[in-house]
């Protein structure tokens, strides 16, 4: 397995860190090596929030993402900052509210209505991270739906299981419906 480097970005309250943690936990469950890190900063307050996950079949030495396999950007600010100079074959997932002002460097772009889906389909804005998670998994084909669900349910608060299951379904669908 080639080492996967995921960079997940958004704004403070959007739960991209939780997204990364779930991804990393699912990977570990599957016997992979995985690490997760995030950028801290007072500027994270309101500003861009960044979470990185690296998954591989061997110990991961360098702890930061260098050549993202995938970039997720949920806000304009995050996209402006991170959606540039990506490797040619990188996957770029952006919320469809975002306008790309820089050349992302890749043409492998998924412009998905993540936020709207969370709000209107799942009916809970806070599930945008889970919607994204499912979309990422769908694109990269990392885990089976069961594996993914298990990892999600282990982390989310009790009582929100059904909601999050819906979010997973919605995320999968987003990619399935996506026309490249």
């Amino acid at each position, binding site marked *: 397995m080639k080492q996967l480097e995921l960079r997940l970005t958004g704004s403070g309250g959007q739960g991209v860190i939780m997204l990364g943690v779930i991804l*990393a*936990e699912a990977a570990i469950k599957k016997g992979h090596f995985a*690490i*997760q*890190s995030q950028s*801290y900063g*007072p500027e*994270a307050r309101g500003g861009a929030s960044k979470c990185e996950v690296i998954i591989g079949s061997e110990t991961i*030495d360098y*702890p930061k993402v260098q050549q993202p396999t995938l970039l997720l950007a949920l806000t304009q600010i995050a996209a402006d900052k991170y959606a540039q100079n990506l490797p040619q074959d990188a996957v770029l997932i952006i919320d469809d509210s975002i306008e790309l002002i820089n050349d992302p460097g890749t043409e492998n772009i998924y412009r998905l209505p993540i936020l709207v889906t969370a709000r209107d389909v799942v009916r809970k804005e806070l599930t945008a991270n889970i919607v994204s998670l499912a979309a990422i998994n769908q694109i990269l084909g990392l885990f089976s739906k069961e594996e993914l669900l298990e990892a999600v349910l282990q982390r989310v608060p009790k009582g929100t299981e059904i909601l999050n299951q819906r979010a997973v379904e919605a995320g999968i669908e987003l990619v399935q419906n996506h026309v490249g």
Partner: protein
Amino acid sequence: MSNKITLMQGNEACVQGALYAGYRFYAGYPITPSTEIAELSATELPKVGGKFIQMEDEIGGIAAAIGASIAGTKSMTATSGPGFSLKQENIGYAAMAQIPLVIVNVMRGGPSTGLPTQSAQADIMQAKYGSHGDYPMIALSPMSVRETFDLTVRCFNLAEKYRTPVMLMTDEVIGHLRERVVVPEPGELEIINRTTSEAGVLRPRPYEKQPGEIVPAMSVFGDGNRAHTTGLFYNETGFPSNSTDNAKIMLERIFNKVYDNVDDIVQVEEFELDDAEIAFVTFGSTSRVVKAAVKALRAEGIKAGMLRAITIWPSPEKQIRELAQKVDHIIVAEQNMGQYVREVQRIVEGQARVQHYGRGNGDLIKPQELVALVKEVEHGTK
């Protein structure tokens, strides 16, 4: 029984390791990026009958932690840069009064308030020299989350064994990293507890080492030992002495208990050193960068290797000296403006070229930088 495998954060591993070692008291003051250690301790300690207290400042934090240890409880305090500076006076007290204590510094960008959310390794010399006067210091530095667990256990063990404060010098990268960890089972790692004085016995000379002891047994409050503890120079009775002769003996004691046991205390990792022609010396999170670089260099047929100081103080003098016999060029990679490199230069005494690579601005070194550097060295351009 199969070990639990989990995703764990560095700071969490420190707390879990401490609990594994029998830790029962935390006192400190929050500061980024060490705060999770306090927060998790607040959550976990009372579950095992331990105590957590958030003190009014870092000085109070270390003071209370020393107090608890004097009374007989395994204690820890954690902080970062500014708080580490504030704790220095009482670090010297613990060294002088011979009190076991674990002090964690999750290093961040400095000096001063600096870059609180970035990582650095610029408190390395401070770990050894931050308090006034002469005292020895033991400091360990982990490169991974699991190692944070293990070294925290080891910090407690060394603290108890040698009756001395021990530092875990980690950094923001490791402290905040979540990583796959195989959690040790109870009994899997050795746990050392302090030797204590026999209950009910009032020793006239509680600081007199008995045959077979590395350090004199500690008194326990409430056990009828009723000894005296002080930060003044004291003699074997534990009471202050103004004699310079006594001071000489005492200083030598607190130094020798560490330096006579360097082989027990010093721990290093050697990576690809057997046939290395150029070597990195490094520690902590930067070791991950170096390891990646060494692998990349080896892949290109360049014989690079790494000596990693797990114990950074006392420094692995023997190992570094041997290394200098073996390779012509040593690159000390560290996230600062050049600190540990000075120790390496001192030890190497000109037997190899010693060069620093690093910076203190919070920007992690990239493996490619090291690869490029080695190539330049090979081509004689640097």
